[in-house]
Every structure is written in structure tokens, then in C-alpha cells.
């Protein structure tokens, strides 16, 4: 009799233990009914193979997937939905392709939110689709301020950086440090034109002058910028402001060095630089160049920890766009969790005005007025090779520009939320 009792009791204990766990699993997922199509779909639209594919591209998709995995791990059975999907489309930096892909994602693939979208003209197209379909769009890698200005809408959020923030950081600092006369070269499309305007304004407000500006066709098929560079010395500038991005920037800096403009007294200032660009050129080609960075992987321990996880998945160090994609995806999922539904209007309501502090957003806040996501940004300087201690250890952070100073103030915004 006694002999039979022990297994019986232990069986009972195990069964009740299992039941307790099981009960936990069945409980709070009751919110599942409020998730459209029973799943949350995160779409990433970016340049998968072209000039902007290293700075965001396939690794940005991996970053979004990391956010999904971390979200699931964090909330486990309490997650608002366990069915979270990440889908991808390549827009080849063409606005018309981005437009079609966004439409397809929202309509047919049931995307609840789209992320990333480098190339400003393409981002504006996606923002238009977001407004039309009433679905969310988190822009990370496009820079135009129009997304939170004239073209702002209720469903579009602008993460990470924009041309105002870059010009305000770099343009102002470099001018105040004594480089009064600027010669600006920029690629002739939405991003470049916006950069040129933002920098001209920042330089003039800081007491400087734009003594010349030259555009180059986009994309620049010959890879040649010598014409633009050869015309610079005649204008007698103190500094050449390069407003190109990615592979084009790499080409331009290479040629700037070959034409020895530095020895002719023309310094170099770069409008937008990703760490992948420094890696391409080698730090010595850019040593001493100051630029504004939205995030740097080796800034502190918290950033480093995330960068280590990223390296495990991708084999390289993250650009700020990669980190921004992760943070945007994570905060979107948290908002869905908090709202208990993926219905766009409820998620937007949860996000607006929210203050966030994570490894990417320091002193972060999602402005309700124009959906600009503000946070601390950094004035960085490229280290000479002799100071580089490990792979991708290229930046020295000069100063932190506090969130409320880094971005265009709401009072100056032309955004009218409809």
C-alpha cells in the first residue's frame, strides 16, 4: 500500500505542476482576437544589393528579426501574438518600385508596419502609401525632413536622423570652428537637394557663407567626381561639404584625396557618414573628419552589448541604421503589446508622446506633433589608423548633442497632422 502511494503522489505533483504552467500559457493570450489576420507582419523595404545595401540592406532585415526574437523571448507566453513575421522587398532605390512594393506589402502580404526605406524619394512614396492604407511606416534610413514636415502624416514616424540634424550638428560646429566658406557638392535628388538646403541654412546661421555649390547626377554612373572637385579651388572655400552617401561618398572622398585639395587649404566635411563608409575607405582617408552620428556601436557598454549580438548574427558591426531598425521594430512591438491590438490607430495613440530610453534612443521621445523621434545624437571624429584598436573601432565621440537641441524644434515644423 505504502509502496504504491509514493509514485501516486509524485505523479499528482507533476501533473498539477504541468497544469499550472499550462494555465499560464492559456491565459493572457486572450488578446489574440484583436490581432488582424492572427499575425503581426513587419515589412522591411530597402536596397538589398545596390549602393545603400551595406549601410542598411540585408543586415537591417536581420536586425528587425533580432527584435522579433528578443520580443518573443521577453514576453514569452504573455506576448500579444506569437505569430510574428518579417518580410522583405528590394526597392533598388527607385521610388516607383518602393511605391509598388509598399502597396503590395500592405494589401496582399498583410504588413502591419513597414521599416527602413533608404533613399528619400523612395521613403516619401512609402509614406504616401502608409497614409492611404492607414498602416504604419517607421522610416529609419531616409534622411529628408519632408517626412516630418510638409509630407508628414499620422501613420509615418521618422527614426534615427534627418538632414536638419546632420546640418545642425556638422554644419554649425565646423563653421563655428573657423571654416566660414563652404563649397557644397551634392547628389541631384531629394536627399541631396534637402541636404544642400539644410547645410546652407545651418552654415549661414552660424555666420558662414556658401561660396559655391555643385550637383552631380544620381546615380553617378561613371563614378567620377573630378569635374566637381576641380571647380572647387576657384571659389576659395575653407571646406568642401560632401553630401553624398554610401558608395558615392566613398568615391568622392577617394578623389578628394587624389586631387590634394587638403594641401590647397580646403578641408573636408561629410554630411552623412555611415560606419560602413569609413570601413570602405580605411580610416586614414578620413582621419580627423567630423560628422554627426545618430548612434555609435562602441560608445558605451550598453551599445557594445547589442553590437556583440549583432556581430554574432551578421559577422560585422552595426551601422546606426541597423541599430535604428532594431529599436524601431522593438518599440513598435511593445506598443502593440501595450495596446493589446495591432489596429493602427490604437498603436499610434500608444506611441505618440511616448518617452523611451533604450540602447538606441537616449532621452528618446516620439513627438506627437510631427512624429519625429528625437534622441541624443553625437558629434564624432574619425580616428587615424594608429588609434584604431579593433575592427570598426573608427570613431571618437567629441560631444553629445542633447535630444532637444539635435532636431528641428516643433515650433519650426511645417507639419500639419491630418
Amino acid at each position, binding site marked *: 500500500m505504502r509502496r504504491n502511494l509514493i509514485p501516486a503522489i509524485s505523479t499528482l505533483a507533476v501533473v498539477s505542476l504541468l497544469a499550472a504552467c499550462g494555465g499560464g500559457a492559456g491565459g493572457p493570450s486572450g488578446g489574440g482576437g484583436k490581432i488582424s489576420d492572427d499575425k503581426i507582419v513587419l515589412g522591411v523595404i530597402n536596397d538589398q*544589393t*545596390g*549602393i545603400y*545595401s*551595406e*549601410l542598411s*540592406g540585408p543586415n537591417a532585415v536581420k536586425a528587425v528579426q533580432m527584435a522579433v526574437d528578443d520580443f518573443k523571448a521577453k514576453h514569452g507566453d504573455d506576448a500579444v501574438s506569437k505569430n510574428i513575421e518579417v518580410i522583405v522587398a528590394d526597392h533598388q532605390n527607385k521610388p516607383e518600385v518602393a511605391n509598388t512594393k509598399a502597396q503590395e506589402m500592405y494589401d496582399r502580404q498583410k504588413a502591419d508596419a513597414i521599416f527602413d526605406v533608404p533613399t528619400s524619394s523612395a521613403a516619401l512614396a512609402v509614406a504616401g502609401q502608409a497614409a492611404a492604407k492607414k498602416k504604419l511606416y517607421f522610416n529609419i534610413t531616409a534622411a529628408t525632413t519632408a517626412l516630418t514636415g510638409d509630407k508628414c502624416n499620422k501613420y509615418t514616424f521618422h527614426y534615427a536622423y534627418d538632414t536638419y540634424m546632420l546640418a545642425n550638428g556638422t554644419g554649425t560646429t565646423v563653421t563655428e570652428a573657423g571654416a566660414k566658406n563652404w563649397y557644397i557638392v551634392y547628389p541631384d535628388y531629394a536627399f541631396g537637394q534637402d541636404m544642400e538646403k539644410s547645410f546652407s541654412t545651418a552654415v549661414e546661421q552660424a555666420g558662414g557663407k556658401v561660396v559655391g555649390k*555643385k*550637383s*552631380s*547626377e544620381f*546615380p553617378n*554612373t*561613371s*563614378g*567620377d567626381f*573630378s*569635374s*566637381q572637385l*576641380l*571647380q572647387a579651388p*576657384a571659389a576659395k572655400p575653407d571646406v568642401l561639404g560632401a553630401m553624398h552617401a*554610401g*558608395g558615392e561618398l*566613398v*568615391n568622392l572622398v*577617394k*578623389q578628394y584625396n*587624389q*586631387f*590634394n585639395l587638403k594641401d590647397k587649404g580646403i578641408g573636408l566635411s561629410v554630411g552623412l557618414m555611415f560606419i*560602413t*563608409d569609413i*570601413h*570602405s*575607405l*580605411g580610416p586614414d*582617408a578620413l582621419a580627423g573628419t567630423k560628422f554627426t552620428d545618430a548612434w555609435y556601436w562602441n560608445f558605451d557598454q550598453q551599445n557594445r552589448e547589442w553590437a556583440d549580438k549583432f556581430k554574432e548574427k551578421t559577422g560585422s558591426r552595426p551601422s546606426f541604421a541597423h541599430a535604428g531598425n532594431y529599436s524601431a521594430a522593438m518599440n513598435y512591438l511593445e506598443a502593440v503589446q501595450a495596446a493589446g491590438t495591432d489596429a493602427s490607430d490604437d498603436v499610434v495613440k500608444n506611441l505618440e508622446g511616448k518617452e523611451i530610453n533604450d540602447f538606441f534612443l537616449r532621452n528618446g521621445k516620439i513627438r506627437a506633433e510631427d512624429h519625429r523621434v528625437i534622441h541624443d545624437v553625437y558629434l564624432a571624429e574619425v580616428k587615424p589608423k594608429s588609434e584604431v584598436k579593433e575592427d570598426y573601432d573608427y570613431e571618437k565621440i567629441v560631444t553629445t548633442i542633447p535630444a532637444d537641441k539635435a532636431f528641428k524644434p516643433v515650433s519650426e515644423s511645417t507639419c500639419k497632422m491630418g
Partner: protein
Amino acid sequence: MTDLLQHAFNGLVNGSFYALLALGLAVIFGMLGVVNFAHGAFYMLGAFGAFILLNEAGVNFWVALLVVPLALGAVGMALERLLVRRLVALDPLYNFLLTFGLTLILQDLLRMKYGSQPQPYPQPAGLRGTVDLGLFDFPAYQVFVLVFSVLVSVGAWLLLARTRVGMIIRAATERPELTRAMGIDVGRWISPVFGFGIALAALSGVLAAPMRAVSPLMGADLIILVFAVVVIGGLGSIFGSVAAGFLIGMLQALGNVYVPGLATTSVFILMAVVLLWRPAGLFGREETAV
């Protein structure tokens, strides 16, 4: 005036690449009637060849300048033997598709290995800094590229105009049937000529590495322009392609300064005008035009 000369000179430097690439295309087209779309890919492989040799084996620029074109020239010969030759008898479109497909494969293979971010390649020691050209100073490396390309073009011309081999190639290029009828084995020369054309593309690729971005797409971006150069020069015309190469480099550079919006478009406008006015190209002859 100095400015104008400086921009024109700069245009000649850029034209060097067009000239060498167009020369290779013209030779291949002339001899085989094949429009080699993979020309841009071999230009890209040339640049990557130099980059890989430097980073994996520490081989410097000067050695790469010799080794890479020879190696890729051999690859070109093999390509002709194994694939191109089988399609020559068919519609020219087949070889166009073959070389186009090859381009996509080569680009994607390198993209898988190296990504599309441009790779760094330093300027060769001894050619850093600038040289004084009297009226203005110019980067030493760019001057070298121009001088070297002119020498290669002149060398290629001497080879074709003054040697027996050249005579056979020219004859086979312009009148393959007649040359065959004279008892000359034209077939023997097809592979070497194809390899030579590819080697020229590789050579321009190596030359481009220190100046331009070494990336899998560098050839794809350029090749369309080079096709326009060949058409303007006269399809299959050897002198025409070189002359048009330098001419268009200059046109683009001056266009960039004086009518920036039209710099690249101007090449295609010129192409349209040339085709209307002289359908065989500036230096082509009506009978060789296809």
C-alpha cells in the same frame, strides 16, 4: 583658359577608360560579330583581381597590372572556346544573352563574397601626390593612367597595322569570308583575339582600382556608356573606338562644368546625332556597319 585646359585634361583621363574598354569591345565585335556584354564584368574582375592579389598575397599594383590582364585574358580564351564559339553560328542575340547572363553571375558571386560596399585600394607607391604640368598640377596617378592608356592604344594600333598577325586580324575583321578564301586560317585567331579584348577590359579594371570604387557593380554602371562610345566611334572600327573614347571623356568633363544637367545625356544625344548623320559611326565605313 587654364581652367578649360584642366577640365579637358581631366576629361582625357576619364576617356582613357572608355578608350581601352571600347577598343576591346571593338576588336571582339569586329572579329566575332559578338556584342560582349560581359565586358563590364571583366573590367570589374580586373579591379577585384588587383584588390584580391593585394589583400590575399600582398602583390603590388605593378605586378597586378601585368598578371591580372594575362590571367583574365586566358579566362577569356577559355570562355570563347567553351561557350561563345558554340553560339556564333546562331542569331547574335544568343551570345548577347550568354554574356549578359555571365555578367549577372559574376556580379552576384563577388557580391556574395565581398558585399556591394566599395573596397579600398591604395594608390601605388611612387604615384601619390601631384605633378606640375606647367599650367596646373594634377594627381600623378591620373597622369599615369592617361599616358599608359595612350601607350597601350598606340601599341595595339602598331600591332594591328604593322605586324603580320595584325594584318590577318584586320583582314579577318573586315572581310572574314574573303580572308578565308585566301587560305588563311581565321578560326585560329578567334580565341586569342577574344582573350586580347578581355585582357584590355581587365587592364582598365586594374587601372581603375586606385581611382574608382572597387565594387561588383562598377562595370555594370559603365558598360552602357562604353557601348555608346563604340557606336559613336563606328562599330568594329579600332581607331574609331579609341578616338571616340577620349572624345567622349572630354565631352563629359566639359559638360559637367558648363551644362551640368546634360553631362551624361550629352553622350546619348551625340550618339543619336551620329547615327542620323553617319549611321556607320564617326570612323566606321558603311560596309562594315551592321
